[in-house]
């Protein structure tokens, strides 16, 4: 697939890639390499100009706008800037994602508590985001991405705003989730993480895939 913006910028050129269910993939590259565009195409924030793109069974070249929410419900997104609602408690921030899919109160109470415990924030459910550290806030973001049990996690530089030691904690958590069968696609700049966690690595440069190493980051 290829993507050229209206400004004339060629963001992606003939990118051809297959990610299998249950894989953990790092997407790396310098700024402007096309990582963000790649992620935007997968969540259908942008549409490729040519080629084909199939995500979780949805053909993103043919999908109608009203079907996009249903595509997004099959995935969980973790943002670099956490994107927590400051006026809502930790619990409500996570529950918010469940309200969107129309879950009932009992299920919301049960699943939110479970997922917060899983990310190690069971005792911070009533805290406000401002009372949490960066790492904790990102774990809330992770809990929100996981709470609807998606088959794919998209993490756009999730460690970009946290301390290095907390970065390891977050990727460890993602690896743990991946081991339970969830596909994880993580964009990162952090070569140390890529090296230390032995997952498939796709390297982008000027909108093209220049390396795809299934064996892990140590070889990049």
């Amino acid at each position: 697939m290829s993507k050229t913006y209206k400004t004339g910028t060629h963001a992606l050129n003939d990118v051809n890639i297959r990610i299998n269910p249950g894989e953990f993939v790092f997407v790396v590259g310098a700024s402007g390499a096309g990582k963000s565009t790649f992620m935007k195409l997968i969540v259908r924030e942008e549409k490729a100009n040519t080629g084909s793109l199939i995500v979780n069974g949805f053909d993103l070249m043919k999908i109608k706008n009203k079907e996009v929410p249903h595509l997004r419900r099959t995935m969980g997104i973790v943002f670099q800037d956490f994107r927590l609602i400051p006026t809502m408690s930790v619990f409500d921030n996570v529950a918010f994602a469940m309200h969107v899919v129309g879950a009932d109160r009992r299920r919301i109470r049960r699943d939110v508590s479970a997922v917060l415990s899983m990310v190690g924030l069971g005792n911070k459910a009533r805290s406000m985001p401002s009372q949490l550290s960066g790492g904790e806030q990102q774990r809330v973001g992770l809990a929100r991405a996981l709470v609807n049990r998606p088959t794919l996690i998209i993490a756009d530089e999730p460690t970009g705003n946290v301390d290095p030691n907390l970065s390891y904690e977050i990727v460890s958590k993602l690896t743990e989730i991946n081991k339970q069968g969830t596909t994880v696609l993580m964009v990162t700049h952090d070569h140390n993480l890529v090296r230390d966690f032995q997952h498939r690595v796709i390297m982008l440069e000027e909108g093209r895939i220049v390396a795809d190493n299934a064996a892990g980051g140590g070889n990049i």
Partner: protein
Amino acid sequence: MKLRSVKYLTGEGIKNIWANRLMSIASVGVLVACMVLIGLAILISLNVNKAMGTLEQQNVIMAYFNDLNSVLYGNASDSYVPETSSDATSSDEDADESSSSNKSSSNKSSSNKSSSGKSSSDSDEVKKPTDIPDDAYLIHNEKEALALCKKLEKLDNVLSVEYISSEKGLESIKEGLLDGKDQYFTFLDGEYGNPLSGAAKITLKDMGKFKETLKAIQNVKGVDSVQSQSDLADTINAIKNGIGIAGVWIIAILLIISLVIVSNTIRVTMYNRKLEISIMKAVGATNSFIRLPFVIEGIAIGVISAAVSMGILYFCYRVAIEAIREALGMMEIIGFSSVALPIFGVFIAIGALSGIVGSVIMISKYLKKEGSEFTAI
């Protein structure tokens, strides 16, 4: 959308009002001002229409019949002269035609002939009806007069027709104009003393069609002449039209202002909640799910404004009624309770409509945005 989602979003919409309370209060304030002005415009318009309606009821058309008296006591120019009048000697079998032409000639001078007693006629020498052939006039007796009244009643735009016999007409002149000194007017008594024609007092439904109706009445066979206050009818029409046009403009302008105000509130709310909207989109919220709390917020602001406006309008109207009654004395004014429900309905409709339209217009801009575009707003 599931019912529990609707409940959740309704709660969110109401919470938003409190969360943005300053903006909400400002919006309610401006909306209330608009609604009160709209309410006052409606009330003034209704009261003016009522007053005009009362005037309309008093503004009647008098149609004088082409009867024996109209032939005998018409103006000198059109009074009956057996030897020379072609009208009176026209064909026997077509009495309608002859009296119709008679009518048209007498119409020209009809304005001078009125219930004032036809003073122009020379009553000292009353002509005997034996000189006059039956086909010189159309209305020979009360039965025919009543039939003519029925005919007039069937005309378009005629509300009611009251038959005023020549005797009744004379009575009312004696009572009204002669001020009890009718002993000086005994010459009016007797079989041929009364110079008045029979007449019909016609009330119209719509003064807007005054001229057309007047013409239709004049064209009815058996009607000799008509008398009306066309100036008053024109004035009433002008006032009614003016009030109607001004009312529509005022309401239209205030409606637009209301819409802009609510849209603005929603826009500010959306700006404050752009992060929330971006997250909603990311986790798979449908457009209607994102839109609903804002629509609820808009509607709630509209409904609150409607309720507050009703209270203020009631108070203002009461004060205004007191002032008008004190200044003008007894005057027929529409009671607030009789129009409260429709006005409240109008207010609710304005509030809800501006809430829905305002939020839908504003949010459509946000719904097109994706992810990082929200941070650029």
